């Protein structure tokens, strides 16, 4: 193959790779979002929510965007699957490893007797 042909083939290859990478980026599921200590992962028609201040989890249908009906008690398998994906994406081995900024807040609430997730 002549040098010009090689260059053209390379250019085509690079273009295809770039398009493929761009398409992969476009199609990739969004990473977990974070607002303060509250993490959310949207996958498989569900919203997985982890509150790092209290170390509590919740699960919602994606259609329940206002997060009004927590399904976590009755859908343990889905919760565990999403927890696993969440931990993988934030590179943590357990929920305890996920950093929390709300320690001062937690101290204040514990000062008035509240322990998040207690008794559940």
């Amino acid at each position: 193959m002549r040098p010009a042909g090689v260059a053209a083939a390379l250019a085509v290859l690079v273009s295809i790779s770039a398009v493929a990478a761009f398409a992969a980026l476009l199609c990739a599921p969004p990473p977990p979002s974070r607002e303060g200590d509250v993490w959310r992962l949207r996958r498989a028609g569900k919203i997985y929510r982890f509150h790092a201040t209290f170390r509590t989890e919740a699960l919602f249908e994606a259609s329940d965007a206002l997060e009004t009906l927590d399904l976590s008690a009755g859908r343990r398998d889905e919760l565990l699957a999403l927890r696993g994906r969440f931990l993988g994406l934030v590179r943590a081995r357990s929920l305890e490893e996920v950093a929390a900024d709300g320690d001062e807040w937690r101290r204040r609430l514990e000062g008035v007797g509240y322990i998040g997730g207690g008794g559940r």
Partner: protein
Amino acid sequence: MTRRTRLVAVLLLLAGAGAAAWLLRPAPERPNIVVLLWDTTRADRLSAYGAARKTTPWLEGLAARGVLFEQCRAPSPWTQPSHASLFTGLLPRHHGSTTLESPLAPAHRTLAERLKEAGYDTVLLSNNSLVSPLTGLAQGFDRFVDVGRATGETTAAATLEVLRAELAARRNDGTRVGRPLFLFVNLMDAHLPYEPPEEVARPWIPADAPEADVARLREFEFPRELGHILGISILPPADIAILRSLYDAEIRYLDDHGARMQRLLEEEGVLGGRSMLVVTSDHGEHLGEHGFLDHKLSVADVLLRVPLVLHAPGRFEGGRRVKVAVRLQDLFPTLLETAGLPVEGSATPHAASLLPAALDARPQVAEFSPALGFLPRMREIHPDAPESAFLPFHRRFVTLVDVPAAGRRLKWNITRRVEPGSSIEVEEGETLFDVDADPGEDRDLLGVPDGKEDDRAAAARLREMAERALGE
């Protein structure tokens, strides 16, 4: 040029001029809106609401120039769900922020977000940790100041100084000064512990109260309030009387600072003209009724009936006292309408504007979720208490106050026990009170041996209304 061509040209010119006029129209002038929310303030302790002691002379004056709603109720007896309802126009179970671990979801378009989109400079000054970014309640606010963290104290006096600094900073910021202001201030003085400044408290405390008892009760807070409620360590009546007087003193302290804040806001040009000032609360407080203190484990009327005064020169006929039942979350469409913004009716089925001169009475629904988060500490503090003592933490309470009929204002309550670790609920009982004649809820109309058939029918009707409202 033919006549037809000339006609088309003229029409095109007119259309162009119309479009230009529309594009160049002046932006609507939106009024400043200020909300002073006195956390934990029950209406019946305010002289503006008929209390014998002069707790709120400033608020009385404000109401004389504005409008006072005599029958406003909150949808929840605690901070987080009530504020979320005020900010969304939704009942607690519809906005989803009903426990500390359930922050308001970002999918909501809150009052502050809508006002911000309309060009408002949105500022939140909060003395309550629950009214903060950590609960999602700061959504839409350009500025958030945690008064406790900024000043080291959570008092109206500290808040006044924060407000002064905020207004000065705004005055000197060219990007903010020309915009209308939405200012929301949460004040925590009426919350436990009740510790008003000594000089404020003195005239309110019973003359024969021993100083040591007063000093002890100024520090009264968790876990002692729960010990009292659960019957583990009950306060004597003399202590309750001191707590009530300290609470009243805190209200007076809030009222005095309401006057100072109004003056400052007027001096800064925030209030006056077409502005609106709102004074309200998120919930009330138990002051010993039925063995309760604080505002947990109950939906009694003293926790739900809150003050609501709107002061908006030119918008209301001064001195009106509205007897129609309204709801705290009605402020959501009211403030949007005040700002000249549309309210999507479908998004707020349980909130309606308070601006029309003729208001329809509105049934008032409220609920309290099980307070399970307090259980571990209480078990730790009282290891010898029987498990039955902690049953109230497993209870969910729902109430509905009907619109007045046949000279009565009926309040229906139901208590359900939630089985730990599940969503199964067991009904424990329902009660019915006429809260106009019996505001303390002492005479259960369903509990009397010769109970009337129409009371049982009324209870069934109110239950159906509550279930429909809550979507059960």
